[in-house]
C-alpha cells in the first residue's frame, strides 16, 4: 500500500495542517522593522536621482545612459488605467529611490555581513550562514536596494552557473547583461517598466550554461525595510541551450501606515531546449483591515522561449500587497515551445489584485496552459486578466485556460477578463471559468469532523488551489499553504 503513502504526499505535505494552526492568530508576521543605518537618496525623482543611483553602484557609462534613456521615456508616459483597480494618485516625488544598509559595498563573504541583517533574515525564516543555510536552496538576499548576501555561490560556480546580485553581474559579466537586459521587457513596455529601468537598484542575475541542470533551487528573498522607500529590483535569468533551472522568490515588508511602491522587472530567456521554472510567493505587507498602508505592487514579468522546444513556467502565490498589478507572461517564439502560468491570488480586507498572464504564440506547435485561482474575502477585489494571442505563423498552437474564483463572504468581488486573439485557423484555444462560494455545508462537514473553523477554511481553500500549489517546489508549497491560512484570517465567523 505504499501507493497510498505516495498519494498523501503528493496531495498535501504531511504536517501542513499543524503548521496552519500555529500559523494563524498572529496576523502579518513579518511586519517588524530592522533598526539599521541606511545610506539613502533624498526623496524625489529627477535625472539627478538616476545619476546618484548609478554612481552609488559604480556603474559603467553605458548603463547610466540606458537608465537615462528610460527615465526620459518614463517622463512622457502615463500610468496605465485599464486595470480594475482603485488607486489614489501616486506622488512619485514622495518616494525614496535608493536605500542601502550603510557600509554595504555589495555582497561579500558571509562573516562580513552585518549581524543585524543576518538576524533579520533568520527572523524571516531564511538563515544565510553557510552552516544554517537552507539545504538545497541557494539564496540571494536583497535588502531594500541592495543584495546583502548570496549563498552557495562557489558551489554553483563549479558548474559554470552564475548566481549573483545584479550589481555584481554588471561588474563581472557585462557582456551577458548588455546582451539580454531589456531584450524581453523593453524600456518603454509600460509606465512601471520604464520607471524600473531608470531607477532599478538591485536584484538577482542567473546564467546557466548549455546543457547544465542546476542542482539546487535558486532563490531571491526580497525585503523592503526602509520607510518611504520604493523597491525597484531587476532580475535577469538566462538558461542557455538545454539548461534547466528552478528559481523562487519571496517577499516581505514591515507593517507601515503609508503605502510603499514596488515596481520590479523580471526577464527570463530560455534558449533551445532549455527550461525555466519561476515561482513567487508574494507576501508584501497588505495593509490593515481598514485598507491603511500596504505595498503597491506593480510588476512586469516576462519570459521569452527563444529557442525551439524551450519551456517557461510561472507559478505565483500572491497573498500580500494592498494592490497587485502583475501579468507574468510568455513569448513563445521557438517552435514547439511551451508556456505555463499557475496562479493563486488572494484578496482579503481591502486588498485589490488585477493579475493574470499573456501567452503570445509566435512559433509553430507552441502550447500554453493557464490555471488561475482567485480567492476573494472581506471587501477584496480580485480580477483575472489574461491574453492569449496566436500569431499568423503559429500553426498548431494550443492553449488551455482554466480560471476559477472563490468567494468568501458577501462584500468581495471576483472578475474574469479574458482576451483571446487567434490569427491561425488551426489553433485550439479553450477557456473555462467558474465562480463558487465556500458553502456552509462544506464548512460544517469539516467542523463536524473536528476541524476548527480556521482549519476548515484553509483546507477548503487549499483544495481549491491544489492544481497550482502542486506546481511549487516542495519547500515552498508548505510555506504557501500556511500563508493562505494567515491571509484569510478573520474572513469567516
Amino acid at each position, binding site marked *: 500500500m505504499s501507493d497510498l503513502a505516495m*498519494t*498523501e504526499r503528493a496531495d498535501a505535505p504531511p504536517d501542513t*495542517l499543524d503548521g496552519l494552526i500555529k500559523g494563524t492568530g498572529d496576523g502579518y508576521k513579518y511586519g517588524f522593522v530592522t533598526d539599521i543605518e541606511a545610506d539613502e537618496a533624498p526623496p524625489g525623482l529627477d535625472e539627478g536621482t538616476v545619476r546618484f543611483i548609478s554612481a552609488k553602484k559604480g556603474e559603467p557609462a553605458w548603463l547610466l545612459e540606458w537608465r537615462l534613456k528610460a527615465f526620459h521615456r518614463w517622463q512622457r508616459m502615463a500610468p496605465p488605467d485599464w486595470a480594475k483597480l482603485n488607486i489614489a494618485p501616486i506622488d512619485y516625488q514622495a518616494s525614496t529611490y535608493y536605500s542601502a544598509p550603510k557600509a554595504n559595498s555589495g555582497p561579500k563573504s558571509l562573516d562580513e555581513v552585518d549581524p543585524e541583517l543576518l538576524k533579520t533574515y533568520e527572523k524571516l525564516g531564511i538563515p544565510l550562514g553557510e552552516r544554517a543555510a537552507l539545504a538545497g536552496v541557494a539564496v540571494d538576499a536583497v535588502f531594500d536596494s541592495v543584495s546583502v548576501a548570496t549563498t552557495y555561490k562557489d558551489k554553483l560556480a563549479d558548474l559554470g552557473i552564475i548566481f549573483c546580485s545584479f550589481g555584481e553581474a554588471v561588474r563581472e559579466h557585462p557582456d551577458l547583461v548588455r546582451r539580454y537586459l531589456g531584450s524581453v521587457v523593453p524600456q518603454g513596455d509600460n509606465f512601471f517598466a520604464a520607471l524600473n529601468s531608470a531607477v532599478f537598484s538591485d536584484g538577482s542575475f542567473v546564467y546557466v550554461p548549455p546543457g547544465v541542470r542546476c542542482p539546487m533551487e535558486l532563490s531571491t528573498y526580497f525585503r523592503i525595510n526602509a520607510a518611504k522607500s520604493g523597491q525597484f529590483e531587476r532580475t535577469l535569468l538566462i538558461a542557455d541551450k538545454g539548461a534547466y533551472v528552478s528559481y523562487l522568490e519571496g517577499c516581505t515588508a514591515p507593517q507601515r501606515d503609508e503605502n510603499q511602491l514596488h515596481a520590479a522587472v523580471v526577464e527570463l530567456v530560455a534558449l533551445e531546449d532549455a527550461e525555466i521554472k519561476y515561482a513567487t510567493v508574494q507576501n508584501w505587507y497588505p495593509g490593515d483591515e481598514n485598507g491603511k498602508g500596504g505595498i503597491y505592487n506593480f510588476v512586469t514579468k516576462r519570459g521569452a522561449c527563444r529557442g525551439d522546444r524551450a519551456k517557461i513556467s510561472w507559478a505565483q502565490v500572491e497573498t500580500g500587497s494592498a494592490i497587485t498589478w502583475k501579468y507574468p507572461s510568455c513569448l513563445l517564439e521557438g517552435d514547439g515551445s511551451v508556456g505555463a502560468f499557475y496562479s493563486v491570488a488572494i484578496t482579503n480586507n481591502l486588498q485589490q489584485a488585477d493579475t493574470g498572464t499573456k501567452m503570445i504564440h509566435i512559433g509553430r506547435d507552441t502550447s500554453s496552459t493557464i490555471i488561475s485561482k482567485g480567492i476573494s474575502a472581506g471587501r477584496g477585489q480580485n480580477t483575472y486578466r489574461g491574453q492569449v494571442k496566436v500569431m499568423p505563423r503559429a500553426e498548431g498552437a494550443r492553449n488551455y485556460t482554466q480560471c476559477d474564483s472563490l468567494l468568501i463572504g458577501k462584500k468581495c468581488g471576483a472578475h474574469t477578463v479574458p482576451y483571446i486573439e487567434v490569427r491561425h485557423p488551426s489553433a485550439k484555444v479553450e477557456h473555462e471559468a467558474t465562480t463558487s462560494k465556500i458553502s456552509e*455545508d462544506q464548512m460544517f462537514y469539516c467542523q463536524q469532523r*473536528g476541524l476548527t473553523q480556521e*482549519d476548515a477554511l484553509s483546507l477548503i481553500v*487549499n483544495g*481549491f488551489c491544489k492544481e497550482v500549489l502542486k506546481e511549487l517546489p516542495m519547500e515552498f508549497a508548505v510555506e504557501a499553504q500556511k500563508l493562505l491560512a494567515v491571509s484569510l484570517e478573520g474572513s469567516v465567523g
Partner: protein
Amino acid sequence: MTNLLEIRDLRARIVGGRDILKGIDLDVAPGEVHAIMGPNGAGKSTLSSVLAGKPGYEVTGGSILYQGRDLLALPADERAREGVFLAFQYPVEIPGVNNMYFLRAALNAGRRQRGVPELDAAQFLKAVRDKLKLLDISDDLLRRAVNVGFSGGEKKRNEIFQMAMLEPKLAILDETDSGLDIDALRVVSDGVNRLRDPNRAIVLITHYQRLLDYIVPDHVHVLSDGRIVASGDKTFAAELERTGYAHLGSAA
C-alpha cells in the same frame, strides 16, 4: 449506568422559521443502539443537526447533556472532537482535498483535544489499513478528493469508514442505509456492528426495518411532528412495518 446523552424537552427551529422539534426527550446510555424512525419531514435530520451543532438552527427550549456536560454550549467542532459523530444523510464534496489527508487532519484534531500524541504518516497509514480490514472495504476511495464524484453508496461507505477511524462515543447515522444496494447495505451494517462497543452509543435514523434486521437495536423510537410519540424494543420496528405511523398520532 449513567447516560451518555440526555435530551430533555428539546425545542428547536430553523432560524426565523417555525418550530420543528417540539419537545424531544431521549436518554442514550453507552453501548446502546437506538433506532429513530418516523415519517418524512418529522424532524429526524433536524434533531441530528441540532445534536451536531449545525449553524442555522435555534434552540428555543430544553436541554442536552452529553457526558454530563451542556452540549449546546459547545461549538460544532468541539462537539466533534469530544466524540460526537454525524454520518450525513447527504455527505458533502470538498474538491481538491484528498480523502486521506482530510481524515488525518480530523483524527489529529481530536487527538490534540484529548491530549494524546498525533499520528504521523506511518502510524496513520497503519490505522487506515487496520480499519479497512475490519470493515472489509477496499481502499479505492481513499486516493480521491473527499466525496467528489463518489456514487451515493460510496459516500455512505466513506462516512462509515470515517466513523471507524474517528472512534466516536456517540455516532448518529442519518439514513446511512438509504440508496444502498443489498451488498452495500451488508457492508455498511456489518461495519456498524463491528463498531458496536460498550463505550459507544449509536443512534440510527432510518426508514427501513430491513436495516434493523442487520443492526439489531436496543430501542426503537418513532419521531413524528417534532416529538417522540412511541418507543419500544427491537420488535417494535417489525410491528411498525405492519401498522405504519398514522395511528400513533403526533400528540405526546
